[in-house]
């Protein structure tokens, strides 16, 4: 990496229902997603010899790849659990799978994340069991910072101050992803949203309101990789990973670079260079949207808009279906479900196959998937291409 020159492709995708899955455990959800992805590619369970997952945030485990392997009923040659952060974890899983297959050690590898963060978290817990997520209880908790909303609120306020942006810029992201979610039968949010709805939603941590924040969801997503032409259902459906770029710059919000220096620009530049492409070559933008501000920052870092111009771009309709770069046609973390960004990747594959139904992006040949973990602490950009 960052260039992926091999013939390894994403041959299968699996998604569970999202929202509330009462009575399901994390390992059961991950197994359901893997089985769906294997079916999609036409593989049998016994074909699986690589297994890469992320353990649940709400109920942390260790050795979760072995837990899943046993539960599935497989004995893979290669199994591991990775936790890099946000959607970058999904990209890192793909890297691991590509390497395992390129080396010849594995033939069929699955990457999966899923849990019941909505219905399965410990009773009374405010947020998830993520106390040390930003690395410094000692430098955050005594000052009133806990969880992920406050760090993103600090980033959002800085963005508003730096560029003179307004809540309409933030709202535009929430509104377009909601419009898209309404075209997805497997989305948590089913009601239209207006600017008035957005402004009526309660303040969580200024300037962020409830409708600036992504969902808490049960559900899972999985990808199955193999060599091109190897999958029984493969045909011409295998989607290539053209490039992955990543950058880690910090962990806690106190050490976050100012917006122009966030790692997304470096990750994007690496991915574009490796693929020999730029924003003009992209037709689908599946950008990490844990908060509305994440999208504005990412649009600018990845060259879709100039500094401070992300909101204007979204309000212009360019990120709507039918526009130049439809944003998160599945509804994203804001309005479909927050499955750690795995569904940004499965949606990109679906779009590139031309199987997205009424939310299909016309002429979709390449998708850019971005992700970040923490507070843009680790950033990733990945370019997928149709066969």
């Amino acid at each position: 990496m960052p260039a992926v020159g091999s013939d390894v492709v994403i041959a299968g995708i699996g998604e569970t229902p999202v929202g509330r899955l009462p009575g399901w455990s994390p390992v059961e959800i991950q197994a359901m997603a893997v089985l769906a992805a294997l079916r999609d590619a036409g593989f049998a369970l016994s074909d699986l010899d690589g297994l890469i997952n992320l353990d649940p945030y709400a109920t942390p485990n260790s050795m979760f790849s072995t837990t899943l392997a046993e539960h599935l009923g497989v004995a893979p040659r290669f199994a591991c659990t990775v936790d890099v952060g946000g959607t970058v974890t999904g990209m890192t899983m793909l890297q691991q799978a590509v390497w395992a297959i390129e080396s010849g050690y594995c033939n069929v590898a699955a990457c999966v994340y899923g849990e019941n963060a909505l219905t399965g978290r410990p009773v009374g817990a405010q947020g998830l069991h993520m106390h040390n997520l930003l690395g410094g209880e000692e430098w955050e908790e005594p000052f009133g910072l806990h969880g992920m909303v406050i760090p993103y609120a600090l980033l959002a306020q800085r963005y508003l101050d730096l560029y003179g942006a307004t809540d309409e810029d933030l709202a535009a992201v929430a509104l377009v992803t909601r419009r898209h979610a309404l075209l997805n039968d497997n989305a948590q949010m089913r009601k239209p949203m207006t600017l008035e709805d957005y402004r009526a939603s309660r303040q969580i941590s200024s300037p962020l309101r409830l409708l600036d924040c992504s969902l808490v969801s049960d559900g899972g997503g999985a990808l199955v990789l193999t060599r091109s032409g190897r999958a029984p259902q493969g045909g011409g459906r295998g989607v290539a990973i053209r490039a992955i770029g990543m950058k880690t710059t910090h962990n806690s919000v106190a050490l976050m670079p100012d917006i122009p220096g966030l790692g997304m620009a470096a990750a994007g530049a690496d991915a574009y260079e490796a693929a020999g492409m730029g924003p003009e070559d992209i037709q689908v933008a599946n950008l990490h949207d844990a908060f509305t501000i994440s999208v504005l920052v990412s649009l600018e870092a990845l060259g879709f808009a100039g500094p401070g111009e992300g909101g204007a771009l979204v309000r212009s309709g360019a990120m709507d279906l039918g526009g130049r770069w439809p944003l998160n046609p599945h509804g994203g973390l804001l309005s479909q479900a927050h499955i750690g960004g795995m569904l940004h990747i499965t949606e990109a594959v679906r779009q590139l196959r031309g199987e997205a139904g009424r939310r299909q992006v016309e002429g979709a040949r390449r998708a850019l998937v971005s992700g970040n973990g923490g507070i843009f602490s680790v950033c990733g950009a990945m370019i997928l291409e149709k066969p």
Partner: protein
Amino acid sequence: MLDLLATPPNPTGASAPFWDACDRGELLFPKCGRCGHLFYYPRRHCPLCGDTALGWQRMSGRGTVFSHSHVHVAFQGGAWSGQLPYTVVLVDLAEGPRMLSRLIGADAPAVRGGDAVSVVFPQIGDRRYPFFERVPAG
């Protein structure tokens, strides 16, 4: 507002001098004895050059607001309900490093980016905490 609340830190051997200084009403940041890098937060090595010969520099406690947020949800539990809304700030210290803190005082809700602030050390439970207040203009 009711009495201030703060979740106590659990210092390491490397960070204890920072918190002990706060209890004396002093803001100390670590400084590399080799390359002179002044940094936050305390570690056992310099994150610029890797050296472990570190000292402490007394900070002026003056700075400007890089960003802020008024928090309306008791993320640290129901006991915090009486603190709401409270204000979290990123402060750029005059000497360079940035730190996360809380902005207190009656005028905290009117804070703007770039405002001048100064450190204060309120006693909360067994410790004193390096929070900030706005400095009146002029």
